[in-house]
């Protein structure tokens, strides 16, 4: 068998020490890592099982109004937490649109952030992939690229980050708490994932051994609760990664947009915050034409990485619609098909 060490430390410092050696990998639910190991895509020499570490399974409402989510909280547990969906509805909607019920019951918050790309050339060990084998080249370029990146890609890597959860999180200025051998530090989610550049094997800013211990939502995130949506377009109704997705949130004051948040999923190797597009909306009255304009700004730097030019216009349309939905207001109940274009709230029209 593929022999590897399996360690189950009982404290975070022990875990960090155990995972600081080359070839080590953290194991939580394993919903992605175990598949990758079975496929021979990754072959860690040491698994550090953090699944039972104490202190990582709390959802804390912080005194300042923020929220701290332990890294081992399961996706389903968080989405169904009383109060969470009410304060951060687009995050809950994104969580419930991801994967399948079984996977959501297992997958953790920390693992979600660190899930690997779904690029087929990354999974196919006979293909060249700079992520798997730095310097090997990228066989995705010139291959089957319908779902590949349109923003932030490089000739070294045209893959995308597949998370739904991260998209509204990055829009909401989420902060990742990590602990390493030098103690704890905060990293904004926006800065957490790296774009590929010339070293796509470096996917995040985590140093060797650093462990995600929590994700924090700042107090400001809850101010968008009444106008926050996540919208995910996919090739089947459920259990499919986003072709393109978007989170949109508005803080309304006197009928005007006081603040806007926009992020995109499925378009780049990181959850893509569209700050320039947000700026377009500040102080304006909600209006579909305005939203369309903002969507254009969000995609201004987009370019196809292969046979995927359609994703750029699709992304513009999704951002526009997500803003329209956010402006219309968060539905009082989670739709039966969260984040789906087929999740029309009762009586509401999404299309002029």
């Amino acid at each position, binding site marked *: *068998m*593929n*022999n590897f060490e399996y360690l189950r430390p009982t404290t975070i410092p022990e875990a960090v020490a155990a995972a600081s050696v080359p070839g080590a990998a953290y194991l939580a639910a394993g919903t992605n890592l175990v598949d990758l190991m079975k*496929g*021979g895509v990754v072959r860690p020499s040491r698994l550090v099982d953090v699944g039972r570490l104490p202190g990582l399974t709390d959802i804390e409402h912080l005194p300042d109004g923020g929220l701290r989510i332990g890294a081992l909280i399961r996706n389903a547990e968080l989405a169904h937490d009383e109060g969470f969906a009410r304060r951060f509805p687009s995050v809950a909607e994104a969580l419930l649109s991801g994967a*399948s019920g079984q996977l959501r019951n297992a997958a953790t918050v920390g693992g979600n952030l660190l899930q690997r790309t*779904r690029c*087929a*050339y990354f*999974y*196919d*060990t*006979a*293909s060249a992939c700079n992520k798997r084998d730095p310097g090997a080249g990228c*066989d995705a370029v*010139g*291959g*089957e690229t*319908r779902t590949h990146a349109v923003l932030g890609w490089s000739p070294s890597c045209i893959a995308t980050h597949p998370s739904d959860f991260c998209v509204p999180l990055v829009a909401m200025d989420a902060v990742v708490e990590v602990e390493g051998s030098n103690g704890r530090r905060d990293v904004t989610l926006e800065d957490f994932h790296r774009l590929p550049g010339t070293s796509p094997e470096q996917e995040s800013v985590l140093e060797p051994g650093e462990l995600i211990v929590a994700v924090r939502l700042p107090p400001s995130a809850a101010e968008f609760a009444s106008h926050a949506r996540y919208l995910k*377009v*996919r*090739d*089947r*109704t*459920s*259990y*499919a*990664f986003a*072709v393109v997705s978007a989170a949109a949130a508005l803080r309304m004051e006197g009928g005007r947009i006081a603040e806007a948040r926009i992020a995109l999923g499925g378009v780049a190797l990181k959850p893509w915050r569209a700050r320039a597009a947000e700026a377009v909306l500040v102080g304006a009255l909600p209006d579909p034409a305005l939203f369309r304009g903002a969507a254009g700004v969000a995609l201004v730097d987009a370019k196809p990485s292969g046979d995927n030019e*359609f994703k750029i*216009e*699709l992304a513009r*349309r*999704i951002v526009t*619609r997500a803003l329209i939905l956010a402006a219309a207001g968060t539905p009082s109940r989670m739709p039966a*098909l969260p984040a*789906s*274009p*087929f999740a*029309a709230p009762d*009586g*509401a*029209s*999404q*299309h*002029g």
Partner: protein
Amino acid sequence: MVEMTSIQGQTHTRQGSSIGQPLTRMDGVLKVTGAARYAADHHPAGMLYAVMAVSSIARGRVASLDVAAAMAHPGVVQVMTPGNAPKLAEDPDAKTNPFMFRMDLLQNDGVRYPNQPIAVVIADTLESATEGAALLAPAYVTEPARVGLDGNASFAPPAVGVGNPAEMHRGDVDAGLKGAALRMDATYETPAQYHNPMEPHAIVATWDGDTLSIDTPSQGLAMAQGRLAGLFGIAPEGIHIRSPFLGGGFGCKGLLSGPQVLGVMAARLVDRPVKLVLRREQMYGPVGHRAPTRQTVRLGAASDGALTAVSHHAKTASSTFDDFFEPAADTAHTVYASPAIATSHEAVRLDTGTPLFMRAPGEATGSIAMESAIDEMAHACGMDPLAFRLKNYSDVEPISGKPFSSKALRECYAQGAARFGWATRPLAPRQMRDEAGLLVGWGMGTATFPALMFQGHARAVLRSDGTGVMETGAHDMGQGAWTALAQIAADGLGLEQDQVEFRAGSSDLPDAGIAGGSAHTATAGMAIHGAGADVIAKLADLAMDDQRSPLFGAGNTGVIARSGRLHRRDDEGRSESYGDILARAGLTEIEGRGASASDPAAQSAYAMHAHGAVFAEVKVDPEFGQIRVTRLVGAFAAGKIINPRMVQSQYYGGMIWGVSFALHEEALTDRRSGRIMNQNLAEYHVPVNADIPSVEAILVEEHDPHVNALGIKGVGEIGITGTAGAIANAVWHATGIRVREFPITLDRLMG
């Protein structure tokens, strides 16, 4: 001579009949409790685990394998390569009958498709064998892969499907097109699709000298037995294959596949029982698939909508080393009336595994193209698609001119349309929206599948304790054979259901033919029916010849078998139990035999098909193009229905596969390497529950006096036909966009 009339068709014996009852599955409790043992659940003492190493190139040869590294790995017992693979009695590339396909059994170092087995590692654990296979680190001499329908020179295949002519025609198509008021000419493409039953191919093989004991899923036990006998040069009787349950077959387990034989070879090599189970991605190559097609349909119609010409040309692909040509154009033979019909095929050879049978091979691919084309022509004629189909309804089989043995398609159209609410459909596309503003479209398709029958055998026993046994080597792939065939057995033996022990799924039982071509219920069912009649006739002889029996002398009027008793046909008050008849004769049991085969006289006189009509509603997001099939109504007529619950499930399954065909399934093949890039269930999409909000299947009554004595047609494959086209047509009706390349994906509907 005793006159034994079938107990079916006797209205006074209807009470107590099992046939027609919606019984729940006999094997249902076993399955939901996990007690049903599938092939890979078996672990004979001393068993080793075998794992295949497969090729990552499409074409070339294996230059080296690091066998030493694999052998050095703890737990690895043996590595089977062309260097040490057991010699076979028969060349696996030999073809001595049309159902024989070439296998890759480590007889040389050549590579002719991705995922071809190139070695088998045998170890004492699955993990050791898996790691051993990874350590082989093959090096290849690689040649350029031939990929895609334009990837090689095309030719006219000698035959398509299983021995069908590659070209057929009736009338003058050119004249029909020339004289038409309206003409259409369109090309449709369907992708390669791969088998994804829940249970991948698995085998547990044990040798004892020259006898072989096997657990493996099979849709054709006797053929598998024969294939193994030939390859290993042993007697078929020395091979015992058990296949009580299949986790889905759909054609990929119809013929023994190469990897299953490799499991047997591995067991011989190490002289220990061996289990070999394919990984999901290993299903994408050596076990058959549905080939891609590019189909050109040309239609001509008179101004009143009557077709004047139907031309259907299909280009498809086989492997470089064997012949299976998806007979996609043949659907034009059987559905729509036209004075002129021409069908033809061409093919290329690609570096893929050999395509083989996948649920409705030819009918599924052909139907989506033809039903799309018919819809396009109906629109061109300004006619409702149902009215257009009725205008071109054929009371005889169009290509042959033969009458149908039965054809309740008009009833299917009527009942399906009524249930669906078709009458209010606007003629023009893009006219309907739901309350949320989603585009709504309605489409329909005609379903058809031939009513086939193979040769089958069964053995019946009646015992003096009043119980009976029915044996046939039938196959339950999940379709409900354990249940439906047991129902036929109970009626055939004149016993209550719980008095019959039904034995199936094992090669030491009488050959039940292949569970394919939607023909298994007819084939095995008629053999069972015959065996029941035979044993009852023998029992009746005993009674009627015995002066002590109340049935003595009933020979001229005959008897009726019911609930464990024989009754005089002309005086049902005079009867005797089976047990009493046997006891008086001093017998503990009595045996009968039955055989089934299609009737050549009826076959030459009649065209035999099941029919149906499928109506689909889709919703499409007008800006994103995302599609959801919100409603499906199918109405099918397939002769006698043995178990309506099982049949309804078969229709559901077929219709859901139609959704898959129209919207989801596609093997993404890298255009350079020929490797399939989405060989996993996350990225090779099939519908999930959320894709199937509402599916209804109407069982339209149909009596067919010609197909066989029980009147059974098949239901296994017809559901996929009609449905895929209905969805394509509904997408057009919703959007006004005609997508002719399948699956229909959202990027093509963004407008």
